[in-house]
């Protein structure tokens, strides 16, 4: 059987298209070369902090952009990752020697203030770094799995899912703030110092963490890309479009949704853990509704269907936030609010959409790439 000509392009379902390799190279160049050269240690650390948010945005692209599942509770997973990492760091910072002025030396200071005299059981394993690193991935994934399974099996989706995840974020915030003996309360877990003996507060450490963070981000992007170009990625898109059709093609829709949600949770948790390492503390203000929604807007600004867009969107919004709030603090909320509305109304595909519509056609025309038009996805219904 002779294959029709177009099918030959189908054959090589490449890991990434040429333009995507260019995007990746560009991003890597900016993260690893340009920014470290241009910025001083303080600004670089700031960018590092922003990049941790882009893990969340990346997860949202998979789960919201491709899968159509909007979670307004990604802060929960970011916070979980961050808190788990902070627990390890806090225990290390609370050596008997460091805490000898306390009534019970050797436990975190906030526990001492709350008359807790022994380390609670769920803190104990966090003296081990390997355990902590595993927990950073596994605990949020399990939590997402439980929520996802419970909801998706019962076909909770769309707006309901968004509102319920939002409520979960609210509950967790109240819990963390209320259980301050175990969680550090509203202050969070602060004054973190060393990672396995290595002082994370120095500029040198910040630099190293920045590069580790960047490398992890690229790894996550590559994994996300792997998911995206796998059949699973296409099933997610298909599911967003015609859920019933996927179901009656023999797939367990709930399972795929749960996977997307768990993946987003794990990405967010990695971001949270890196945040704790770079910023030196974790607080409940990342768990709540407001940060969770802000993180959605990063993905929306970048383009909800673009993995690279998620990173650019995060950087852009945060850069704008820092700059505006330094120069015109009063106007910042107008700017941010306006940005939300503008993106939703005029650019539902965000930066990536603008790029695809206006920039890429020129580039490809010049390069005469024989590539078919990329499957520019229209704004999804949900």
């Amino acid at each position, binding site marked *: *059987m002779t*294959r*029709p000509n*177009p*099918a030959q*392009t*189908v*054959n090589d*379902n490449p890991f990434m298209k040429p333009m995507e390799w260019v995007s990746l190279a560009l991003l890597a160049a900016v993260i690893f070369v340009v920014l470290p050269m241009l910025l001083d240690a303080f600004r670089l650390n700031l960018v590092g902090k922003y990049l941790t948010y882009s893990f969340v945005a990346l997860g949202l692209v998979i789960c919201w952009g491709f899968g159509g599942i909007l979670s307004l509770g990604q802060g929960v997973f970011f916070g979980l990752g961050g808190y788990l990492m902070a627990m390890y760091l806090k225990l290390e910072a609370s050596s008997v020697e460091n805490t000898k002025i306390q009534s019970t030396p050797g436990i975190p200071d906030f526990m001492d203030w709350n008359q807790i005299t022994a380390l609670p059981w769920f803190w104990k394993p966090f003296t081990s770094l390997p355990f902590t690193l595993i927990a950073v991935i596994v605990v949020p994934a399990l939590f997402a799995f439980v929520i996802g399974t419970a909801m998706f099996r019962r076909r909770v989706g769309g707006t309901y899912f968004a509102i319920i995840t939002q409520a979960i974020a609210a509950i967790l915030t109240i819990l963390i703030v209320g259980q301050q003996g175990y969680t550090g309360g509203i202050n969070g877990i602060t004054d973190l110092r060393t990672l396995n003996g290595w002082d994370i507060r120095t500029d040198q450490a910040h630099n190293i963490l920045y590069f580790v963070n960047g490398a992890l981000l690229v790894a996550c992007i590559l994994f996300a890309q*792997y*998911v995206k170009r*796998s*059949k*699973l990625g*296409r*099933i997610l*898109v*298909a599911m*967003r*479009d*015609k859920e*019933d*059709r*996927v*179901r*009656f*093609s*023999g*797939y*367990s*829709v709930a*399972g*795929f949704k749960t*996977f997307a949600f768990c993946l987003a949770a794990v990405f967010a948790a990695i971001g949270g853990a890196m945040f704790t390492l770079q910023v030196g503390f974790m607080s409940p203000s990342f768990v709540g509704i407001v940060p969770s929604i802000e993180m959605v807007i990063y993905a929306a600004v970048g383009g909800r269907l673009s993995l690279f867009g998620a990173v650019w969107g995060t950087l852009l919004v945060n850069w704008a936030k820092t700059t505006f709030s330094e120069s015109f603090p009063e106007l910042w909320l107008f700017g941010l609010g306006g940005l939300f509305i503008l993106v939703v109304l005029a650019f539902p595909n965000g930066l990536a959409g603008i790029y695809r519509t206006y920039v890429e056609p020129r580039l490809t025309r010049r390069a005469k790439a024989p590539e*078919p038009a990329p*499957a520019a*996805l*229209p704004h999804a219904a949900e």
Partner: protein
Amino acid sequence: MNAALLPSHPIGAAPAEQEFLLAVEALTVSFDGFKAVNDVSFYVDPNEIRVIIGPNGAGKTTVLDLICGRTKASSGSIKYKGQELTKLSESGIVQAGVGRKFQTPSIYDDLTVFENLEISYPRGRSVFGALTFKRDAQVRDRIEEVAHMIFLKDQLLERAEFLSHGQKQWLEIGMLLIQDPELLMLDEPVAGMSVGERIKTAELLNQIIVGRSVLVIEHDMKFVEDIAHRVTVLHQGRVLSEGSMERVKNDPKVIEVYLGH
């Protein structure tokens, strides 16, 4: 095809189950007291084309929904090759070998024809399987083969959104074909098609029934006569009549509620 030559069973007699591909018995579903399907029983043989007809609101689509698990039955049983379907999940039912086409073409607009067919390919249906699914020669050959059958081999790389209505219907039939189901359920496969397309569709159906049973809902009587081995008439959620097209056409009850007007 001559319906008379095919095995037939009297209504109501409880035949030995193994002979049937599908045995629907005393199936009932009610929505807030309204019985959309009421005590429906019928049996489909292997390699049979069965058409369900009936006026609007007769419960035809609901019957298909019940078989494929989209709607849960209030009571009654659906046995497919001796296996109780009412207890299976939708994906379990599909994996058991039941395929379903929806009334309005239900395809993935955002994906290409190739990708549409690929998703229906019955391999890598678990999360992990989908993640590690390889687009190998076997897959491609099968997709191209099916694309050829459904007259879309030149549109493989086109986004499904841009197909004509008839092509979309074919694509959905193709998506079912690639699943290779033993029982194929089609909800109004020729609705909205041009005459030419309809002829091609009938040809397609005759080609694909080899080795499987087909359950069709259709309004187009000409088309029904062309393809049906046997016909079941539903009215107000109940089976009104069943048998060959010839027999059903002459049934006074059917004439009164359906063919008469």
